[in-house]
């Protein structure tokens, strides 16, 4: 099977330090990592490749350092990597991003069977790029896939049928499609593997990674980056609600006792609610 996995580098937000003065996150310290859901999508592709053969192309749009996650994907078992990087691609919303990724897929892997994406990115969580990619490529699309099964072709020599399952809004759905298709993979379905240490060195010297800028990609400058985006960000502000509550600090034991001193009336009713002496 010809598999394409679209991956994104995101800041490792949970690791970020906070600024003592402002209480904000120090974004300049942000280490990049492969978006966790993209890891699940890559894992799904690796399993498909192991069971049914074929090759995996990973594609990422981002700044030059996004090469790191493509190298990591190669170390994990992807065959080729494509970095889409160009200053004119910056500031893309999902409309422009899906155009750009589709352009690359059509250029390097026109004969794909499945494109796999994580169901959302941890930094923007729109979950929109996968479904828009299906529209842009004009192929079947299914979001939040939990299991993927490849059924033997109905006609000898024909393309296999892909059977999928997913949970959507209180329904368990079983779906089928004939390739090509775009799937977004739910985070619960495919637990990612760890990088095999033996794979790392070849991955960093691998020549199987190509860089494409907007020109090499043959992208319409009006449809990429901020130019190709329909949305504009007016302003960004902290989401902090300051309630000016009670602050307790110092020794832990004293703080806990102060808590009961101040709010015992609201806590005591619950103390021992689920407790049995056997605990």
């Amino acid at each position, binding site marked *: 099977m010809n598999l394409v996995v679209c991956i994104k580098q995101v800041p490792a937000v949970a690791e970020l330090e906070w600024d003592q003065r402002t209480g904000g996150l120090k974004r300049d310290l942000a280490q990049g990592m492969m978006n966790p859901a993209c890891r699940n999508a890559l894992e799904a592709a690796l399993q498909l490749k192991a069971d049914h053969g074929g090759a995996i192309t990973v594609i990422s749009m981002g700044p030059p350092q996004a090469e790191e996650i493509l190298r990591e994907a190669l170390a994990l078992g992807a065959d080729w990597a494509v970095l889409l990087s160009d200053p004119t691609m910056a500031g893309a919303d999902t409309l422009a991003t899906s155009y750009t990724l589709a352009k690359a897929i059509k250029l390097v892997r026109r004969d794909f069977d499945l494109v796999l994406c994580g169901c959302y990115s941890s930094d923007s969580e729109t979950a929109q790029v996968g479904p828009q990619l299906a529209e842009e490529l004009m192929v079947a699309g299914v979001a939040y896939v939990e299991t993927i099964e490849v059924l033997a072709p109905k006609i000898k020599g024909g393309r296999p049928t892909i059977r999928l399952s997913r949970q959507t809004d209180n329904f368990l759905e079983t*779906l089928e499609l004939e390739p090509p298709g775009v799937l977004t993979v739910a985070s619960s379905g495919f637990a990612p593997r760890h990088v095999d240490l033996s794979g790392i060195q070849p991955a960093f010297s691998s020549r199987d990674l190509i860089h494409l800028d907007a020109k090499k990609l043959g992208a319409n400058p009006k449809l990429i980056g901020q130019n190709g985006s329909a949305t*504009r*960000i007016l302003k960004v502000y902290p989401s902090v609600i300051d309630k000016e509550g009670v602050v*307790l600090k110092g020794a832990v034991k004293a*703080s*806990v006792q102060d808590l009961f001193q101040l709010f015992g009336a609201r806590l005591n009713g619950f103390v021992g609610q689920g407790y049995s002496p056997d605990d």
Partner: protein
Amino acid sequence: MTESHGKGEVWVFGDYRNYFRNRVTLQLLARARDLAQGLGTKAGVLVFGSRMDEQVGDLAVESVAHGADKVYLIDNPALANYRVETYVNLIVRLAAEYRPAILLLGATRFGRELAPRVAKRLRTGLTADCLDLRLDEKGQLIQSAPAFGGNLVADIITPEDRPQMATVRPGAFQELPHDAQRRGEVVLLDLPDDLPRERVRLISAVRQPHRVEKLETARVVVCGGRGMGSKNKFKKLHDLARLMGGEVGATRPVVYAGWAGDETLVGQAGRQVKPQVLFSFGISGAIQHTAGIQEAELIIAVNKNPEAPMMKMADVAIVADAHQVCLALIKEIKTRLKARAV
């Protein structure tokens, strides 16, 4: 029907599949009516399905009673199941014909798969998971959504393209009370006979049994984040919860790290909790998480960082190591229980 008849309206996609559990369409209709009044236009709802006059005492009537001025109704056996390509096609046709100014969808799984495909086809902007929607002085839709992992909120506009599209999390707006006296117009439409074939075959759709919603109904919730330190330390939260008849919730990083199951995720993408007492251990307070705890009555937060958003929104902020405080609380409660038993 002239083209100007629907031009500039505020539309809501009627996502009524789980009507009794998911009220997002009704919540959106309430805000759509406000926006429509601000723009001097009508609030419309798109209702597609089969035999809808028999459902929930007539979905068209129900939509009007909850704030819709107009109901665009397609009732056809071919629409008995939610099918994304068919629905994309129908919405795109209607939008091209009636030219609404705004199109809102609930952030159900179906809504979040449908909306981006419609936006792509219409070549317009779409903001995901909005927390608030309002108009500026020019009548543009300002869409507030979580940004950069949820520590920030972004105000987003779609300056040129129409309709302005947004998906909205259930719970962001309050539905209007059912008003049987309200009157609205029903635009009855036929199913087009040139719908494209669905590329994806639906083999089966099985309604899942109702999950016991322990977290949603718990009176005490103990939430933990990365600040708990490790999987083993995180487990102590269960001991604390058990001592108070409570349930344990988790943040996204904790679920990613495998310290807690997916089903315990609290926040925008997970459970919405409304306990009388919420304990928050080692949680910084990204908006994706805090969106799920807005209705907690008493919030007790523990974090080493007094400036963390979670600490700012707490009634009691304990500046200390989360795991240490968890252990101290367990000890304190056990001491109190022993004293009671005597």
